[in-house]
């Protein structure tokens, strides 16, 4: 028996210029689930993640968080968003700030103004940041470096660190492995899968179906429609070939 869903999309449609970017998508995510989001480029994977984290509001359909529709009141919506964390494809770090300040940016929603301002003067909660750096296999000496001075792989770990500081219940990740070499990709994926244990859940969009090990479920998008949703173990080559080639799997 599954626990009640964390996130539920009901018949979500997002308009696009030529065709809908998402069209009538139904998706339910439960705590503890690790779901891979598959599909060819332009299928709507990033749009789906943007709807999930609240960046985009769908023109039709409903988004429910823990059984409640997304709140219209600003305060309540922000409290919902605080529990959804995103690892962005382009990372979206604050280049002008140090690594520690960037990690702490994950706490801003909880901190409020006084601590947010103080963090710009004297970066806060060093001990927690040092532990986090060790967990991410990063040298704690980097904490005082501007994030712009880091290598690509290091920056990705800092972005993941910011996500961990936010401590969300639902982790969304948009193609996090796209620009990494196989070894780094494997390490990062292991980290993400390790974090996403119940009560957390993970929805990760993926370009490479060969990395599906460790996922519980796979969903597939094509041309804005959800055309695949089954346990990852039941996924076979024919099914994937169909998703990417455009026939019904």
């Amino acid at each position, binding site marked *: 028996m599954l626990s009640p869903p964390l996130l539920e999309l009901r018949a979500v449609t997002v308009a696009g210029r030529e065709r809908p970017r998402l069209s009538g998508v139904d998706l339910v995510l439960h705590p503890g689930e690790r779901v891979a989001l598959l599909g060819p480029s332009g299928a709507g994977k990033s749009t789906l993640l943007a709807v999930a984290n609240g960046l985009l509001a769908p023109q039709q359909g409903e988004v429910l968080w823990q059984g409640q529709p997304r709140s219209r009141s600003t305060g309540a919506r922000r409290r919902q968003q605080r529990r*959804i964390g995103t690892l962005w494809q382009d990372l979206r770090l*604050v*280049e002008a700030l140090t690594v520690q300040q960037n990690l702490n*940016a994950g706490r801003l929603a909880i901190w409020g*103004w006084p601590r947010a301002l103080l963090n710009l003067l004297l970066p806060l909660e060093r001990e927690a940041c040092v532990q986090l750096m060790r967990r991410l296999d990063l040298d704690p000496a980097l904490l005082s470096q501007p994030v712009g001075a880091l290598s690509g792989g290091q920056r990705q770990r800092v972005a993941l660190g910011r996500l961990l500081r936010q401590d969300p219940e639902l982790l969304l990740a948009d193609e996090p492995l796209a620009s990494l070499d196989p070894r780094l990709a494997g390490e990062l994926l292991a980290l993400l899968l390790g974090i996403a244990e119940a009560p957390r859940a993970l929805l990760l969009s993926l370009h490479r179906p060969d990395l599906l090990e460790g996922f519980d479920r796979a969903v597939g998008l094509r041309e804005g429609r959800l055309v695949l949703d089954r346990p990852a173990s039941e996924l076979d080559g024919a099914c994937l070939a169909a998703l990417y080639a455009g026939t019904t799997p």
Partner: protein
Amino acid sequence: MKPAAPLLVLLPALVLLPVLLLLPQAVHGGGWELIAQFAGAAVQPSLDPVVLGAQLQGLGITCAVALVSWAVSLVLGVVLGVACSRVVWQSLLGVSWPADGLARLLAIPRSIHELIWGLLLLQLIGLEPSVAVAAIAIPYGALVARVVRDLLDALPRSSLEALLAAGAPAPAALLTALGPPLLPGLVSYGGYRLECALRSATLLGVFGLGGLGNDLLLSLQSLQFRELWSGLWMLLAVMLLLEALIALLRRRWAMPARWQLGRSAASPGVGRQSRQMLAVLAALLALALLLAWRLRFNPLQLLRWQPLPPLAPGGWAEALALPWPALIAGTVLLTLLAAALAVGSGPLLLLLVAPWRWGQALLQLLWALGRLWPPPLTALLLLFVLKPGVLPAALALGFHNLGILGRLLLDAAESADPGAEQALQCSGCGPRLALLYGSLSSVANAYLAYGAYRSDVILRETVVVGLVGGTGLGSQLRESLSGFAWGQIALLLVAYALLTLLGEDLSDRGRRTLLAAA
């Protein structure tokens, strides 16, 4: 403990604390009903055809003065800029010292505000159309010359060297190799100077040199607020139209905005567009010539000096006896206060309105009013409720420059990569904190660098609010000018020039440090 960029950008706003503490003491009690009348008149400007006709005529003169003085300053600036460029002297004669010498000389006309030039020429020549034009064209020409020299000397020289090595005569080689790449930078800067020229022409009008400024001053002094507002709205329309037109041309020609704050510096378009740029420039210059003829602008008038009253005996001693330390300290205090208000209020206001969709539009309007409003008029308005002193002067100057800095900040924040801000908002962060950590942090250093440059402009501008400040070199200069105290005037001008050159050097250093850190 080094404050991070987004905090740094908020620090100048701390000046609001002492200002707010001092304000209650500066209020003299009465005058609030006048302020209320003034505010109320904004939505019901006078529609009297006689008033509108007179103001339209005034506006026409202001625009004509702006355009003619701009055209003269551009021609003057290009000629002088080429004449003090190192690469030009090196190519022609193989030496560069005359370029440096000439550049130093040009610092003098540049360091004196157009209002001082206007008042000086007014005393020397009398009220002639050419006075306002010359008053703007002299300092602007020197400013353009500096920019042209900097642009020319920063251009890559490989193509010039290739042409010279192939035996091309130096003037032809210079024109071919450096002319086209100079054009985009010159046109971009020229557009900005045209906006400035409109503001300066309005300001000179306030001091009696003709145009709409004078009508505005008279309406304000006779408390005809509805007439004042019809003039202000007209001026606002012209200014916004001009700014929109210049922004359009900048986009069309893919030119970097003035003092590009954002990260993406578009590569200047050279080539096919050069012809369009030259055509627009030529059309504007032709229009300026036509207007100059209509204004009966005669440069020869500038040579007909009126006989001056002789220097009174003991004039120099009297001049030396002025309270110099207090005058200089007053000017510096006024500059610092106004600069901190102008630089600090922009980011603070942007943060305050961040949650509201209409907030930015409201700020745009407020800032447009600040830009267009001549600071002495704001100061006079503030005197309805405040006692004369450094505070109303600083508020007036700060408000005007906030209009210029705020617009730049908003443009930069809008063109900055929204990624980090969106990411923070999606993690449940409020819009204000997301703006502070996201967009403001990425434009902070460049904004402060422009603020440093603007502080140098504010130092020059202290003279325009001198009359209400009652402090500083500006107010003393006004007094000495009306008393024909030539000894005092000469020494005051020297003091002003030295102070501005020092300020320019300091602000240059500050700007370089900030940009290096960005």
